[in-house]
Structure formats: C-alpha cells, structure tokens
C-alpha cells in the first residue's frame, strides 16, 4: 500500500499548495484591490479612531478640532467658528469619505499618517498616535471684517502678504457651516442649492470677468516690455474706437485725446488700453499673463479640484490660448472678451506688483505641529516667478497710487496709509445694468504688507470704486491696524 500512500500525500501537498496560492492571492497579489473596496470599513474605522489634528488660525485660535463622538469609540470633527472659516478650512466627513479645503489638502498631516517610524515608537510606548496640528496664516479678525463687509452679498475677498505669499483672509460668500456637513442630508441640501452655491469657493473657483482690474496686467506688460513709459503721451484716448470691427466706448463716451499710461490707468480709459493691447500683441500679452500665473492653477495648498486657472475660455469652458484667432486682444486688454479670472489670481497680480515684481507662492499653512508641540514642518516663503522688473513694479505702484488718490478708487483712502489699487466693473448683463464690481489693491504703497482682491457678483449698477473698494478698505484697515 506504499505507492498509493505516497500518491495520496502528493495530492495533499497539492491541496496545501492551493491554500498557499489563495492566501497569497488575497494577502498580497489582490490585496490593494481589496483594501480599496468600499465595503471594507477597516481603513475608515482606523481613521475614525485616530484623533485628527486641529486646524488653527495664525493667532492660535481653533478653527477645527476633534471631539469624542457621542456614540462609538471614535472622534468626530467640530468647527468652533462655524461658517466663518468654512471655505479655507473646509470639512472632513470621514464616514462618507468627503473632504474639502485644508482638511483635504493637509489630510496626511492631520490624520497622522505621515510618520510610520513615530507610530511604531508610540505603539511600543503604549501611546495612541494622533494627527498633527496645522497652524494656518489666517487672521480671524480680518476674516470676520471681510465677512461682515460683504454683508451676505455673493462675492469673494482674499488678502495675502505679498512678501511671503501667506494668505490672511479668504472669504467666499455665502459661506456654509462645516458642522452641518456631518449630516448627509444637510450636505446634499448644500450641494443642491445652485442659486447660492454655498460650497463653491468663489476665491479659488469663481471664474469671473475681471473688468478693468486686468488693465494692471496690460500696463505691466507695456512698461516691462519697454513699449511705453508712464508719462509718454502716446496712447489714443478718443472714443469710440473700432476694436476687432466693433466700436468700443469709454465710460460716458468721453474722448480724452493723446494721453500717457498714468492717466489712462488713473481714469481707466478703455480705448487707450484696447489700443495698447493691440500694439503689444497676443504673444506679449500671453507671455506676461503666464508670468503672473494665468493659465495654471495657483499653487495654493488647497485641493486641486477646488482651484481653477484664469485665462480666456472658449464656449466649451476650456482654456483658450491668447494666441487663438477667437481672442479679441484689444478687449482682453481691458478685461473683457472671454477672459475669466479668480479673485485669488487678481490678488496675486496685486501682490507681485507690491513685492517689487516678485510673485511669492501663496499658501494657507504656516506650520505643522505634532501632538507633543514640536514643529515638524514650516512653510518657508518661496518665490513663484518674477513677472516684472523692480522698476516696472515701482512705476506701477506709483500709477496705482494715483488711482486711489484722484482716480476711480478714492473710496479706499485710509487716513495715514497710502493705498495703491485698481477698480474694475465688469458688465455681466448690460441690458439690465447688472455689473460685477472689482477692486485689487495693496498697502502701504511705500512698504507693502497686504495685497487684496475683492469682488461682488451681480450688483445693480454697482461700481468697483463704490461697492468693492470700501470692503477692501475695511479689511486693509483691520490687517494693517492690528
């Protein structure tokens, strides 16, 4: 009976080999697919049982924290400031797997998955690992002032330090309370509110026509390329002017004759800038726009799908190169045509001028602190590009100072502080006098510390100088006064 016994053992070895093969299949070869299976709640439960790190404002006040849930051995998210920081902080609904804002872009740090070595040491010491705290650059007082100044109108305010790129204020109105997002029904209701779009971050996602604020970019291109000087009366300010076969008029149809660039910017003369844009040409305009960050998502530490690039957009919503035959470069030069921008992009334009022509990478995070209070990561200021020379920046600062002193932006004047800025009023529905006022600025002009962009959607006949500039003034006063 020896032969069949040997064969039987051979069959059993074969059966065990199958067991090894199948165990390998689940534990190694197909493990990733199984771990990614939505039915498997292990990753979720592991995440829920970890105390997620807090998110703090620059002054240390808590914007997001983890508290023990009423039911189960888990943590849940609490946002003590409610809707005030809803957009920059975002929300973390781990159960549904939905995250946004900093909660998403800093998820690795907040959830504590960054340091494997630390977690092993903690385990040996019997400690439960927790996530790291993210300290932001946000200023709660200015955030409050900006929110109040918008007064429930749809719009956006973004202010940053041009020297470092640190974002001080990021307000998108209407906001939402991230505490409500915990409830799936409430989240659905917020998502479906297309009239107000409260979850839509207008600062980073709002693609708006920039109106005359874009003339800063055209002026920068003209000065930096050496096409004009600030006080050479070479621009044609007559109205109307035929641009791409259609007449273009100045405000109130005023003809200003031969003027220089300073006057053209101070009084926002459309025909002069349209002519300048045509003179500079598509290539030069495209070059300078890209240098300022157009045609790319701003490198903010924010989720990619919550960041939108600025630039010309075709009817299908896709970015259209400036060199495309569909682009009317004259109208683009005054912020019309099919040009759409985000408030963040316009704040970056102001910041680059303010910082002597150097554009710093914008960021919301100042540093990351571990549960023991050690700073594990500091976001150092980083130069993104140098769109214009220091001399061009200085000339532009002078001109933008004029706008506030005597031009369209006098509403932003602050006692004792010199502000440089540019107004804009995009006509979104000329037939019904519906406009989108803009204001971009920086201050103090002599030693810029804050750059800001403000816009308000769909006002009835509102102007940049009357609607947006006062909001910018309040926020600047708060940020510089403190």
């Amino acid at each position, binding site marked *: 009976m020896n032969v069949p016994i040997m064969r039987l053992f051979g069959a059993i070895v074969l059966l065990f080999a199958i*067991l090894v093969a199948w*165990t390998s299949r689940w534990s190694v070869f197909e493990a*990733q697919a*199984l771990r990614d*299976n939505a039915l*498997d709640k292990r990753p979720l439960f592991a995440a829920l049982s970890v105390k997620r790190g807090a998110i703090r404002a620059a002054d240390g006040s808590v914007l997001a924290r983890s508290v023990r849930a009423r*039911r189960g*051995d*888990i943590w849940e998210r609490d946002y003590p400031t409610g809707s005030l920081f809803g957009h920059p902080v975002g929300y973390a609904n781990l159960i549904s797997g939905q995250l946004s804002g900093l909660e998403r872009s800093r998820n690795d740090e907040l959830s504590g998955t960054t340091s494997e070595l630390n977690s092993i040491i903690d385990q040996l010491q019997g400690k439960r690992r927790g996530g790291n705290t993210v300290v932001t650059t946000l200023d709660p007082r200015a955030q409050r002032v900006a929110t109040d100044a918008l007064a429930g109108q749809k719009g956006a305010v973004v202010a940053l330090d041009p020297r470092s790129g640190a974002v001080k204020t990021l307000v998108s109105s209407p906001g939402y309370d991230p505490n409500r997002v915990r409830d799936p029904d409430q989240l659905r209701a917020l998502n479906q509110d297309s009239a107000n779009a409260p979850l839509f971050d207008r600062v980073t996602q709002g693609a708006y026509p920039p109106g005359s604020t874009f003339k800063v970019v055209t002026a920068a291109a003209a000065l930096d390329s050496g096409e004009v000087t600030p006080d050479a009366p070479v621009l044609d300010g007559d109205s109307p002017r035929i641009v791409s076969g259609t007449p273009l008029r100045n405000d109130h149809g005023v003809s200003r004759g031969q003027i220089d660039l300073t006057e053209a910017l101070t009084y926002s003369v459309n025909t002069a800038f349209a002519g300048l844009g045509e003179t500079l040409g598509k290539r030069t305009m495209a070059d300078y726009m890209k240098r300022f960050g157009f045609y790319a998502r701003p490198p903010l530490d924010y989720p990619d799908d919550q960041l939108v690039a600025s630039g010309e957009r075709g009817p299908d919503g896709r970015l259209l190169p400036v060199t495309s035959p569909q682009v009317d470069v004259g109208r683009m030069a005054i912020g019309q045509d099919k040009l759409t921008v985000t408030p963040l992009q316009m704040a970056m334009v102001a910041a680059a001028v303010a910082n002597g022509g150097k554009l710093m990478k914008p960021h919301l995070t100042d540093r990351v602190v571990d549960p023991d209070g050690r700073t594990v990561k500091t976001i150092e200021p980083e130069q993104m590009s140098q769109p214009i020379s220091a001399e061009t920046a200085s000339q532009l600062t002078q001109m933008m100072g004029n706008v506030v002193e005597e031009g369209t932006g006098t509403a932003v004047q602050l006692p004792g502080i010199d502000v440089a800025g540019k107004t804009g009023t995009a006509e979104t529905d000329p037939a019904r006098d519906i406009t989108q006022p803009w204001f971009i600025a920086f201050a103090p002009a002599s030693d810029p510390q804050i750059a800001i962009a403000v816009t308000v959607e769909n006002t009835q006949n509102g102007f940049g100088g009357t609607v947006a500039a006062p909001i910018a003034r309040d926020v600047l006063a708060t940020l510089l006064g403190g």
Partner: protein
Amino acid sequence: MSARNRELLGLIPASLLVTAGFAAVFIERGSLSQNQLSEASLTYGAIFLGLCLAAHVFLRIALPHADPYLFPLVAVLACFGLVMVYRIDDTLARQQAQWFVVGLLLFMATIVFLRDYRKLEQYRYLIAAGSLALLCLPRLPGIGAQVNGAYLGIRIPGVMIFQPTEFAKLGIVVFLASYLRDTRQVLVVGARRILGVTVPPLKHFGPLLAVWGMAMLLLIVIRDLGSSLMFFGAFLALVYVATNRLSFVVIGLVLFGLGGWYLSTTVPHVIDRVDVWMDPLNVHRYDTEGFQIANSLFAQADGGLFGRGFGGAMLRTPYDAPLLPAAETDLIYALIVNEVGLVGAVAVLATYLLFVQRGFKVALLARDSFSTLLAAGLSAVFALQVFVIVGGVTNVIPLTGVTLPFISYGGSSILANFVLLALLLLVSDSARRGAAR
C-alpha cells in the same frame, strides 16, 4: 539521539513561541508594565512547558518508540492557537488552556486504555453505529444547538457545546480502516469493467456505501457541509490506499460532483453558500450571507505579507459590532493572516503539512494493513479538515464551519484531535518497536 530526546528538543521552539507570543500581545495592549510583561508571559510559557514536559515524560514511559515529531508539532500548533485565542479574549484563552489540560488527560487515557489498539477492529460495527448516533444527536429536540443554520452541536449546560462530528470522524476512519483491511483484496479481485470503467463488486462495497451514505445523509440533515466534504474525502482516500484503484476515486468524485450539483440547486442553505462562494464581494449580500467571507478576505488583505502583529487586527468596529465574525473558531485563519501575514500563515500550513507527513510516515512503517489504513486515514482526515476550513476562509471552496485543528477555540475539537494524536502515536510505537527489535 534517541527518539524521545529529539522530541524534548522539539518542545523548545513551542515554548519559546508561546512566551514570545504572549509578550507580543501584552505589548500591543500596552496595559502592563515591563515587569508584569516579562512575568506574565514567562508564567504562561512556563506552565505550557510544564504541561508539555509532563506529556513528554508520559510518552517516554508509555510509548518510547513512537514518532518523535508528532507531539512537538502539535505543541507548536496548540501554543500558537492559545496565543491567537488569548489575543481575541483572555477568558476564552483560559478555557482553551483548560481544554488543553483535559485534552492531554484524554490523550494519556487513550494511550493507557487502547494500548492494544487492534482491539478496535472487533468493535467496528459498534463504532460505526456509535459514530452515526453521534451525528444524529444535534437534531434531537431539546439538546441540539443550531449555529448559523447548521445543527453542529449538543448543548451540555455549563460546560460546552459538544460537537459530535469531531469524534464521529475518528469513529468512521476506524471503521473504514478495519472494514477495508478485510475486503480490500476482494474489492480489487472482484472488480468488473463496465463501459471501460473498473467498478467494485457491490456485495463487498455495499456495507461501505451504506455507512458512507448514511453519514452523508446525516450531514445534509444536520447541514454540516464542511464535515461532509471532509468525511467523503477521507472515504475516497482510504478506498484508494486500500485498493490502489484510481478509478474508484474517479467514480467517487463523479458521484460527489453530481450530488453537489443537485444540492447546490435545490437546498436553499447550500444555494446561498455557493452563491456567496462564486461572488464573495457582492454588495447586496455583504450585510447578510456574504459578511463572513468578505471580511475574511478583507482581513487577509489587511495583513499583507508580514501582518499587523499580534493584537493588530481589527476584530470589532468602533461601535462594538463584530467586524470579523467567529474569529476564534471558523475564521481564525483569516485572523492569522491578518496578524502574522502570509509568511506566518504559510508557516502554520507548513506545520500542518509536516504533521501529515509524519502521519503518513507512520502508515508506511506500520506492519499490518489495519495499522497502515488507520494511520493513513487519520492523517488524511486531519489534512482534509485543514483544507476544508482554510480553503473555505480563502474562498477556494464554499466556507463551512469546521475548526482548524489545535488552533481554533473549542473543547470538542481539542479533545478529538488529541485522541487522533494518541492513535497515531500508538500505531507508530507499535511499528517502530517491531523495527527496533
């Protein structure tokens, strides 16, 4: 080196394993200070080593020539099982340790009272009838206990849920071994060829088929599909060893295939199992029949190559609902993969395979047909039990409720498998005593 000295050496890795295993669980729990850590785990290690030494001394006296590797291999499996069960629940582990002591006592009793194990042959019909009666018990009203739709156990209040299939498997192997010893010649000689297939003579095959058929029927009645598969496999293995006729195995497999196909299209309980087996991650069955196997696979994926370490697997949700059901019994292999990874699980399988290999070695050395068939049958049924449960947990075959021998929590399983070990050692001692002489 003598056989018994080799056995003694073999116990060292087992006791090291239990000490290190408990230390690892304590560290993971982080609940004990350094001193308690070393004391508690060393105490467990020492008690375990003491028990093994006692059994070893007993073997030195009672069965000096028996195979030296079988007992240490069982010790390794048992101590690994104890650590796994302890990691799930320390109360269960204490009970498991008690069953381990009772099991060792039964092991010694078996060796003392069945010293002449050939006597078993005389009682083969009694043993067969007793085994069938055991299988009937769970269906009797009042004492049967239904678990997961199967009638697997008999409730003995305050003590345990006794699982008769664990003992019935031994009885049926003893019966088959003894019956086949008598009839294996005539089965071959009397075989006829029908349509090119060698068919055994019905006259001698009849009793075998009758006993086997009743066992099958009972298993369908008590709905224990895993045991049914195990019994049938052991039956085919023994018939093959006894007759060396592959055609008998093929006929058996065809019959089993037909029966399996019939059952899997008619019996709802079986249909569910097969559906889950075909599509273990189906969303619609996840919360019901599919929960066990889906989480078994998820737990294995969570373990990966090296596992999460003792105590590292997630057994319950943060809301304290079970996440890996029956982790201490049916799904313990999934927990092993989760905590010690593919590497550890393969080591466990290799230990089982080594045990089976020693078992077959005993069968090869045995000097009479009954001993050979008994050792081969016990080894085969043991190997098949491992295959049925590990195959079920890894979804090679539909998942059914069978214990992983010596590792799963459960008194009946430990007791029955210690009897199995005792029988193998008895056969081995008798065979090697003859060789030594």
